[in-house]
């Protein structure tokens, strides 16, 4: 093996080092890399660096994925798009487009329901005599809770749960169907009490957590 060939070989082996580190090389390539590591301090330094980088990539903390919220959102869009096509050809793009088209309309419709719910709570003499729209009023308490509601929950059920928890809708739904709630009267209801009441309403409230 001449010098030029030797150098070229080492350059090729340098390219394999990340996959030596993640332990996915085929046996023959692995054997060649191990021989390279024995004769080259440069290669050993590279492997030490790559191992450190790999560990940092693995350890990096990111926010939680959407989880069950994401699944609920997906199922809503699948429901809107209709059943699986017998032949999927050419359907995927069209249905995604349809789903995208309907998404803002669906969100707008949900907001309309929320606003209507706020009006109805007021008319029925519920907690808080002032109408509280999703856009909020000056001086209102900050949202302290996040909830999602069952997809088949009625306005009446949602209203009753919110009233019993002493909470009102501050804003939402988000694209994932999450509503932010505030306490109607923080002097008489604690966040823990409201949370416990919401969580006890398992058929209506599918998720409740502090904001």
């Amino acid at each position: 093996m001449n010098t030029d060939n030797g150098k070229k070989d080492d350059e090729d082996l340098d390219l394999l080092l990340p996959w030596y580190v993640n332990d996915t090389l085929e046996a023959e390539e692995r054997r060649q890399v191990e021989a390279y590591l024995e004769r080259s301090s440069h290669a050993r330094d590279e492997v030490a660096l790559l191992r450190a980088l790999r560990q940092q990539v693995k350890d990096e903390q990111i926010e939680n994925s959407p989880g069950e919220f994401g699944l609920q959102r997906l199922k809503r869009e699948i429901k809107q798009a209709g059943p699986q096509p017998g032949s999927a050809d050419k359907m995927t793009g069209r249905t995604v487009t349809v789903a995208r088209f309907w998404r803002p309309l669906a969100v707008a419709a949900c907001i309309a329901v929320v606003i209507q719910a706020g009006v109805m709570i007021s008319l029925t003499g519920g907690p808080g005599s002032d109408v509280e729209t999703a856009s909020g009023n000056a001086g209102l308490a900050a949202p302290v809770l996040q909830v999602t509601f069952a997809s088949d929950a009625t306005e009446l059920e949602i209203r009753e749960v919110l009233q019993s928890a002493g909470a009102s809708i501050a804003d939402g739904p988000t694209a994932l169907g999450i509503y932010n709630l505030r306490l109607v009267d923080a002097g008489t209801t604690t966040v823990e009490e409201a949370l416990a009441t919401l969580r006890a309403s398992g058929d209506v409230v599918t998720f409740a957590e502090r904001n």
Partner: protein
Amino acid sequence: MSEDDRELLNRMAQGDQSALDAFYRAYEGRVYRFIRSRLNDSFDASDVLNEVMFEVWRSASRFEGRSSVSTWVLGIAHHKTIDRIRRRKPGESVELDPEIAEDESPNAAETLSAAQDAEQVRRCVDQLSEAHRSVVHLAFFEDLPYGEIAGIVGCPEGTVKTRMFHAKKALMKCLAGLKEMGLS
């Protein structure tokens, strides 16, 4: 696991939503993390995840088993992410195989201490091109062989190796720079 995933896809192709639930729960975390490693926005990443899973649902019948299920799903995520980046920056091309200047690259031993600082590595990874970030993520978070990464990102194996090589050089240069500035 792979056989189970294929069975889930078969059931999804028939419209079985319980299979969708199981598939989503099995892959959602990995797919989200892959997308998130390339998009610096959790809302965009959630949106793209939704698009990917929707595509998986609608295309389940078209999975032919030529690759593993995870390669297929991550490949869909790769293309959806590129679509999102293009939509975010209309008119701006997505850098698919960037080259970097390699002169005066620091050596590995000099940058090793900086590479052990999580914050510095995160900052430097964030500065990588989208193409480099994906290969680094797939090689070091997913621990995938280069052949499988090539299948996901749709390029030759040699290109995957050189992208990783350039990504490493760029990281070393960035880490050395931070070290010189006294930030590590």
